[in-house]
């Protein structure tokens, strides 16, 4: 579960240019003009594959990670390091496709309650210790232990015995059988036909015997893993992390780069620092500050140094569907159709954002249903009709809250304007700190709309639908309790829940996706339980003069293991 705090920083000038825009009835969905989208920076194609040659030092900047030890590695920065130090059971490609990692194959029993992973022979940790099923069991238990207080161990919550370990009642995962060195047998307390997808999260990494318990400081700062890169010396806190190629890597193709130098930048201005560093020749890879996106694209795209990729995330408005005024489908659709996504994308975002026409984004190509969100089009006349039907008369009050400090001020202001203009609503618009926003969403009486964004952890539509829309994910036993789960809007539809349950119990991927698509048609197409706004898209600068094979992987990290000198 990955909630996204920051978004996009915009300029006031851009906001002003919005004002005359868009009164006409214009679809958001069909923004195709001869195959070229009218708004949204187009994606750059995956780079052509260049055969690797060993050598080279690749340099980039990040902010100080919370942890690089897999037991607690969590945000983008920590994940960048950990995913290169460790190889898990499976690999996930930039497009969400699954390929073998340490496991050569995986199968489940018919009801998906037991999984068998067959492991490669002869792969080792950086210290030469063999990677076997015991090493996986060790790594999982190390993270699941109560004393570890891991903030990412919840990814294991389906494994039998996990609850007992979290409660401190057990020191082993009873559901993990490592009796045969090349076979890992996992029994689930909650059957899930997509369990294997979870195992690419770094918390499922194997660890060697020297790792010790989770509070082993030496290992926390210099993890010994089984990935394509290894630590060249301990983590220099607040200064940097240096990785070097693991020459004994056998779980996949060896890395090409001799070294990766990761410099730690101040968190206040990280994107600016990366961008400055790219410009002054310090870094080979950089994120960009949002206000500079347009300008930077104009400079760097002609040089072939610009990377643009849709990633598995969605920006949306979270409506409170059990409390008035948005407790009717018509009211939510009225709000959605009164928002001119194209005008905002053009005016406020300088064309960088892509209006959403579905909740499950196109970064999951198998599952994406273009246009499933029928109310994602801009149609103020229909919006007025729907509003009338829903009793959302001009002058009615709707709460709209966003978090400050994440660059959401301008576009939320534009949405407010449009709701006032197109529906005559009295929008009670307010910005609060992020923790307060989350807290307010949870409250039993919460009403109106809230700014929200979500990034997928696993390459499955289920990772959008289940946590954000299923009844079980509300996390409250009664309407008068705070919602402690991620389904803050409290959408609950037995038919939807049933479709998800059916999907989780369907071993065949094609059939499973079909079920998820039906579920999305129900919750988004019919009920509009979330109001999709923009698909998540990431932009990077990459030094293509010197390096090749640079791209963004599924977790939005650079594909370090493939990068090579030209």
């Amino acid at each position, binding site marked *: 579960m990955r909630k996204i705090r920051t978004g996009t920083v915009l300029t006031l000038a851009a906001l002003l240019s919005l004002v005359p825009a868009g009164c006409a009835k214009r679809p958001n969905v069909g923004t195709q003009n001869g195959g070229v989208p009218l708004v949204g920076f187009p994606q750059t194609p995956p780079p052509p594959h260049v055969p690797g040659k060993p050598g080279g030092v690749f*340099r980039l900047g990040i902010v100080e990670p919370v942890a690089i030890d897999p037991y607690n590695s969590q945000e983008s920065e920590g994940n960048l390091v950990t995913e290169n130090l460790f190889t898990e059971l499976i690999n996930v490609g930039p497009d969400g496709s699954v390929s073998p990692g340490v496991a050569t194959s995986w199968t489940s029993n018919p009801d998906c309650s037991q999984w068998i992973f067959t492991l490669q022979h002869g792969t080792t940790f950086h210290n030469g210790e063999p990677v076997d099923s015991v090493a996986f069991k060790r790594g999982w238990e190390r993270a699941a232990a109560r004393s570890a207080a891991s903030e990412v*161990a919840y990814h294991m919550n389906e494994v039998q015995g996990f609850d007992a370990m979290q409660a401190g009642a057990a020191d082993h995962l009873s559901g993990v059988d490592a009796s045969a060195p090349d076979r890992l047998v996992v029994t689930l307390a909650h059957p899930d036909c997509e369990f294997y997808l979870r195992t690419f999260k770094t918390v499922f990494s194997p660890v060697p015997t020297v790792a010790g318990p989770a509070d082993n*400081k030496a290992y926390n700062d210099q993890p010994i893993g089984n990935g394509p890169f290894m630590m060249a010396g301990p983590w220099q806190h607040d200064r940097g992390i240096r990785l070097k190629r693991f020459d004994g890597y056998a779980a996949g193709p060896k890395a090409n780069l001799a070294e990766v*130098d990761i410099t730690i930048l101040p968190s*206040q201005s990280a994107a600016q620092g990366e961008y400055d560093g790219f410009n*002054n020749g310090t870094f080979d890879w950089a994120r960009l500050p949002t206000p500079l996106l347009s300008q930077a694209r104009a400079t760097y795209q002609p040089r072939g140094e610009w990377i643009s990729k849709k990633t598995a995330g969605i920006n949306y408005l979270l409506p409170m569907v059990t409390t008035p005024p948005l407790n009717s489908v018509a009211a939510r659709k009225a709000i959605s159709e009164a928002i001119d996504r194209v005008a905002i994308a053009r005016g406020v975002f300088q064309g960088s954002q892509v209006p959403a026409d579905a909740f499950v984004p196109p970064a999951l190509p198998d599952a994406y249903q273009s246009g499933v969100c029928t109310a994602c089009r801009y149609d103020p006349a229909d919006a007025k009709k729907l509003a009338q039907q829903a009793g959302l008369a001009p002058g009615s009050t709707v709460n709209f809250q966003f978090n400050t400090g994440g660059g959401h001020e301008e576009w939320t202001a534009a949405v407010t304007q449009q709701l006032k203009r197109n529906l005559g609503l009295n929008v009670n618009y307010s910005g609060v700190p992020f*923790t307060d926003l989350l807290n307010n969403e949870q409250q039993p009486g919460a009403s109106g709309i809230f700014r929200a964004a979500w990034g997928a952890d696993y390459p499955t539509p289920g990772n959008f639908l289940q946590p954000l829309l299923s009844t079980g994910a509300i996390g409250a036993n009664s309407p008068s309790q705070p919602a402690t789960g991620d389904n803050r809007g409290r959408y609950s539809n037995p038919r939807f829940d049933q479709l998800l349950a059916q999907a989780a119990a369907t071993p065949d991927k094609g059939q499973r996706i079909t079920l998820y698509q039906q579920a999305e048609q129900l919750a988004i197409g019919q009920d509009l339980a979330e109001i999709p706004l923009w698909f998540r898209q990431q932009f990077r600068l990459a030094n293509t003069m010197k390096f090749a094979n640079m791209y963004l992987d599924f977790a939005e990290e650079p594909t370090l293991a493939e990068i090579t000198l030209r």
Partner: protein
Amino acid sequence: MTRFVARRIAQAVLVLLVATLAIFLATFALGDPFASTGEKVVPPEVQAIDRAKFGLDKPLPVQYLTYLGNLVHLDFGVDFDQRRQVSSMLAETLPNTIRLALVAIALDVLIGVIAGVIAAVKRYSFTDVLVTVSSTLAIGVPTFVIGLVLVGYVSGLWIFPVVPRSFTVQVPWWHEVLLPAFTLAIIDAAFIARLMRGSMLEVLRSDYIRTARSKGLPERVVIGKHAMRNSMIPVVTYVGISLGVLMGGAIITETIFQYNGIGYLLARAIQANNAPVIMAVVVVSVVVFVLLSLLVDILYAYLDPRIRLD
């Protein structure tokens, strides 16, 4: 002297108590450090374990007394984010800050005193006007502007390292310290020049200077030995306070130059709501400040024998 120092140390302990209590309450008011902040959604059970681990489930007075108890043993605890020893974080960053503060002070005393003396001796000359005008300007321009301009146009030239630079590029410490030190020194140098000019003019009018001149002492000795020594008193006071402030970490300048001192450490800790680090930096700043002002008081007595400490 001994009684004076003892009294000042007793005062220092009191100041430290008040300061730690204030910061303790302030960080407590920031809210629960283990609550979800969005980037990381922390399961409630894990939050509870973390809170218990750091004793945050205990009443506030108990927490504060425990903290003080540990402080007596120089135990600053571990930080909320990475569970690193706060003392080792200080050990890494404090020397950098001390270095930066000393170089900055050296620069600003050098520039300030020379400019001030020249302005006073050559009153109403072109040099005097130049010093007065440029010091007004320097006081008016905010530090961050100077810092950003230097980062934008000067870093990367000659010996000054680029910002940001890869951590693998090693540079001698004085290459790294010069620009931030200069940034910090400009405002202080301007203040010192003005103080120096004012007090020098006053001293130059006093009887003993006239006596010295009438004895036939060369002007160099009159100014350099007799007048300077006495007009340094306000400057010493200012430098003492300024050094204390700088030793507490120059938050803005260190952050702009990505200089790994306690100011930068504090900036990051505040952003992450990392109370153990905030507390430690404040404690260190208070201790350094109190010690320095004690030192300044002792220096007074040396500079002006009429001042007696007891």
